[in-house]
């Protein structure tokens, strides 16, 4: 791998804003403070979101969450609940939220170029009336995240258009990526058959709930 001789130049914040220019009035006007019927319909059809949190020192994480469309429940126009399905148990998001309850969500719907952004504050809950609504294959999550909504808005589709994210032909990219087992063996310097790790991972994927 090559090393950059110098760090890339840092552009000061006011200069960044000056270069980008002012957003259109419309862009600002469509930032709402609650979930209206349109956002609710968007969330009800979204099977995937990216969730950003950071700890008190600003160390950030962004993690994926996904399930059937509508897996994020709208409790009222200011409140969402996200099920905490079994994952890697590292609990980055919960640890961050314990120190800093700010949260940013980006909802995606396959085939839709625009994304829905929701920002607010979040805390974990085990409220039975919330968890029962998340029952899937007769199993409830142990915990859910309650998100108190501060900002909701539709983000324009340019990034998804440029990325050809929903173009089926884009899936040819997957063939260029080593399997998780090959990555782990390379990264950890293990003397193992990568198929062993891949098949254990696949077996683990059978337990989704």
């Amino acid at each position, binding site marked *: 791998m090559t090393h950059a001789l110098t760090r890339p130049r840092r552009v000061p914040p006011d200069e960044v804003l000056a270069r980008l220019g002012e957003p259109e009035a419309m862009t600002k006007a469509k930032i709402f403070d609650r979930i209206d019927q349109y956002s609710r*319909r968007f969330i*009800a*059809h979204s*099977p995937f979101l990216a969730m950003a949190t950071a700890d008190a020192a600003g160390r950030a994480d962004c993690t994926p969450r996904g399930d059937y469309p509508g897996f994020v429940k709208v409790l009222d126009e200011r409140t969402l609940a996200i099920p905490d399905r079994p994952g890697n148990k590292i609990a980055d998001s919960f640890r961050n939220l314990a120190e800093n309850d700010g949260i940013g969500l980006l909802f995606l719907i396959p085939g839709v170029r625009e994304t829905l952004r929701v920002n607010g504050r979040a805390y974990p809950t085990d409220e039975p009336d919330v968890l029962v609504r*998340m029952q899937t*294959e007769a199993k409830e999550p142990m915990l859910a995240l309650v998100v108190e909504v501060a900002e909701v808005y539709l983000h324009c589709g340019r990034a998804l258009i440029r990325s050809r994210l929903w173009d089926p032909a884009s899936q040819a990219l997957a063939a260029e990526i080593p399997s998780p087992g090959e990555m782990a063996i390379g990264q950890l310097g293990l003397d193992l058959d990568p198929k062993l790790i891949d098949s254990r991972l696949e077996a683990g994927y*059978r337990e989704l709930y």
Partner: protein
Amino acid sequence: MQLTILDRVDRVADGVVSLVLRGAAGELEPWEPGAHIDLALPNWLTRQYSLCGDPADRERYRIAVRHDPLSRGGSEYVHLFLRQGRPLEVSEPRNNFPLLPAPEYLFLAGGIGITPILPMLRAATRAGAAARLVYAGRSAATMPFTDELRSSYGDRVTVLAEDEHGRPDLAALAAGLSPRALVYCCGPAPMLAAAEAAFPAGRLHIERFRPTPRTFPPNTAFEVVCARSGRTVPVSPEESMLDALTYAGLPVASGCREGVCGSCELTVLDGEPEHRDDIGAPAGRMYACVSRARSPRLVVDL
């Protein structure tokens, strides 16, 4: 599966909508009173709903759906997001609650449990049987089809709104039950439990929306031999037979995944199933979503 078009959505009581599904290619599969369909929703969830229209109408199915405030995503979707004109896939009708011939019937319905009872009452009356309906609900405004029932059946229908009349006195109904009558009951779990306590088991037929909470012996591992494909699939204690078959590449249709709808019925050719469903599997059948095996091996027709 059959393709339908959502023709009409009508609010028929507080928190209840009726949906009319028209066959996209003309006639739909026939059905008998007590039957239900799986409705595949756009949010990938499949839910079971009793058919409550007229079996003689071969072009349309009617169902009614109550918005459960603790919805797991089915009834909420139907109420908030389903739009008229949308194509929807439904299963062929299945009947776990068939109406057996009898000279007299007592029908008991609780709330949205009225749906399978509506066509039963119509069929029983047309067949010349002495049929009576006791229809209970939380309040009059939440009970669908009461006008339709009163105008068609008059005093053979008793409507009891709990906030005005209290709960039906099932013990009194049981005491006055004709020895020739069969009892059909569909409603919430407390009503079904009360009916099971009040009526003799041989004459009471019930249908559940949700499984009864029960405890089972610890899961054990077993093998499923699939006679048609020649495959043998191990089922570990941690997984359901349905999941094990699906992961092994032998997908079985499924619906509720909790032993009430009957979508995942399999024919058992050998071995002893341990039935954990709430349907009451007929001899030689089992429901792979919840049921397991007493014998180390099951042979199924798959």
